[in-house]
C-alpha cells in the first residue's frame, strides 16, 4: 500500500526529534478530536533561525510521520520561512495521496507548530 510506504513507517516507528517539549518557551498542544490524537511541538529560535525542535504525542502513522518529517524540514530554517509552510508542503514531503478522512492527521503537526510560533 502506497500510504504505508517504507519511509512513512520508518518515521512512525522511529520518529525524529521526538521527546518532551516542556523546556521550550515556544510550545503548543493540539488534539485531533476525531481520533483522540494528541500532539505537542516545541521550538528554540535563535537569531530568527530554528535551532532546535521537538515533538511529542500519540497518533496514527500518518500524523506521527508527518510531524516527524516536519521537524526535519524546519530545523535550521528561518522563522519567516517556517511561517510560510502550508499543508501542501507537508503532503509533498509525505509523498502519498491524502484522502479527505486523513487530512486532519497529516496536518496535525503543522497546526501545532503554527500555534507554537504564533
Amino acid at each position: 500500500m502506497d500510504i504505508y510506504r517504507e519511509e512513512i513507517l520508518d518515521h512512525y516507528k522511529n520518529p525524529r526529534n521526538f521527546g518532551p517539549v516542556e523546556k521550550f518557551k515556544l510550545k503548543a498542544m493540539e488534539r485531533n478530536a476525531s481520533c483522540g490524537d494528541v500532539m505537542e511541538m516545541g521550538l528554540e529560535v535563535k537569531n530568527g533561525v530554528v535551532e532546535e525542535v521537538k515533538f511529542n504525542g500519540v497518533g496514527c502513522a500518518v500524523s506521527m510521520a508527518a510531524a516527524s518529517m516536519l521537524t526535519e524540514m524546519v530545523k535550521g530554517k528561518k522563522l519567516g520561512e517556517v511561517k510560510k509552510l502550508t499543508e501542501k508542503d507537508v503532503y509533498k514531503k509525505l509523498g502519498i495521496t491524502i484522502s479527505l478522512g486523513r487530512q486532519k492527521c497529516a496536518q496535525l503537526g503543522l497546526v501545532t507548530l503554527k500555534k507554537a510560533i504564533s
Partner: protein
Amino acid sequence: MFDVETIKADFPILKRKVNGKRLVYLDNAATSQRPIQVIKEVADFQKKHNANVHRGLHTLSDEASERYEQARETVAKFVGAKTDEIVFVRNTTEGINLVAQAWAKKNIDNNGEILTTIMEHHSNILPWQELGLTLKFVEVTDEGILDMADFKRKLTKKTKLVAVGQMSNMTGTINPVVEIIKMARKVKARVLIDGAQSVQHLGIDVKKINCDFLAFSGHKMLGPMGIGTLYIKKERQEEMGVFLTGGGMISEVYTDQPAVWAKGVEKWEAGTPNVEGAIGLAAACDYHNKIGLKNIREHEKKLTAYALKRLGEIKEIKIYGPKDVEIRGGVVTFTYDGVHAHDVAQILDSEGVAVRSGHHCTQPLHRRFGLAASTRASFYIYNDEKDVGALIEGLLKVRRVFK
C-alpha cells in the same frame, strides 16, 4: 427461512467494489445500507405522490398525508406504541434533545437529578449536560457491563429521569432495561431509552417495558438518513412544552396573544416533515417484520460469537465488551497492539472492508478503558462468516504492513 444470500441480493450497494475488492460493509452501528424495497418506496413517493402534508386539499396532498400517517402507524406498531405517541424527528439525537428541552426543562427543578451511564453515546449525555442540572453517571465493569450495584446506589428519590441506551454502540453490551425501568418506577423517575442500536437488532415493546420515551434513527435500521422517531408516552405528552415552533404545530396564531399549540404529536413536528423519510422508515420496518426480529437476533448472535472467536485468535488484538453473546449485540470493538485505529481502518479499507475507527462518540467509555480510539466492526442481517473472514484477512495484512 433466513437466507443471507437472498437478503444480500436485496441490497444494491453490496454489489459494488471498493478498491477493486468486494465491499464488506461492517460499519452498521454508524449507518446501515438500504434494501431495494426501501429505495423503491421512497422513489415511488417522489415520482407519484410528492406534495406537502396536512396543508392542501388537492389529491397529491391527500395522498402524501395518507402515506405519512400510514408510516406513523407502521413505525408505532414496530415498537409496540400507539400511533398518537410517535413523533417523527431527524434522528435519535434530535429525539433526545426534544425530550431535554420540551420535557426535562419543564419538569425537573434544580433539586432533581438525571441519571445516565458512562457507556452512552454523546447524544445521550450532552442534551442533559446542557440543562445544567445534576447529572450522574453509572459506571461499568471491566467487561463493559453496566454496574447495577452502582446504578442502585445512584438511583435515589432525587432522580427524576433515567436516560439509558438499550445497547452500547461501542461494546455491544445489552443493558437490562426491564430491570432498570422497574427500579426507576419505584423512585418515580421517568425513563428514556436510547434505542438507536437496539430496536432493529433486538426489538422493543414500549408498552411491555413501560418506558416513557424511546428514541431511534431510521438510517441505522435500513431506512433513509434524516428521519428518526421519538416515542412519547401519552401521559408525558401532557406535561410537555414545545420544542421547535413554526408551521404545522399550532391550532391558532395571533399577533396580540400567545398561540394555541396543536393537540397531539403535531405539536412537536414543526415545519414540513421528512415525508419520504418517514415512508422509507416504514418500509424498513416492514422489511424487518418480513424477516422476523427473532431471526435477525439469532443470526447476529451467531455471527458475533464467530467474530469474537476469530478475532480472539489474533494475538495483537484486544476486544472490549462482554464475552457472552446473550448480553452482547453485533458490535465488536477492538484495539490492535502498536497500530492506531485509523491505520487499521485504512488497511482494512484497502481490502474493501469498511469499519469504524475513532471514539465512536463514546469518549467517556473510551476513557474508562484507557483508550483514545478503537476499531469497530458491527454486523447486520446481510453480513455472514465470509465477511468476518475478510475482516480477519485484512487484519493479517495489518500485521504484514506494520511488522
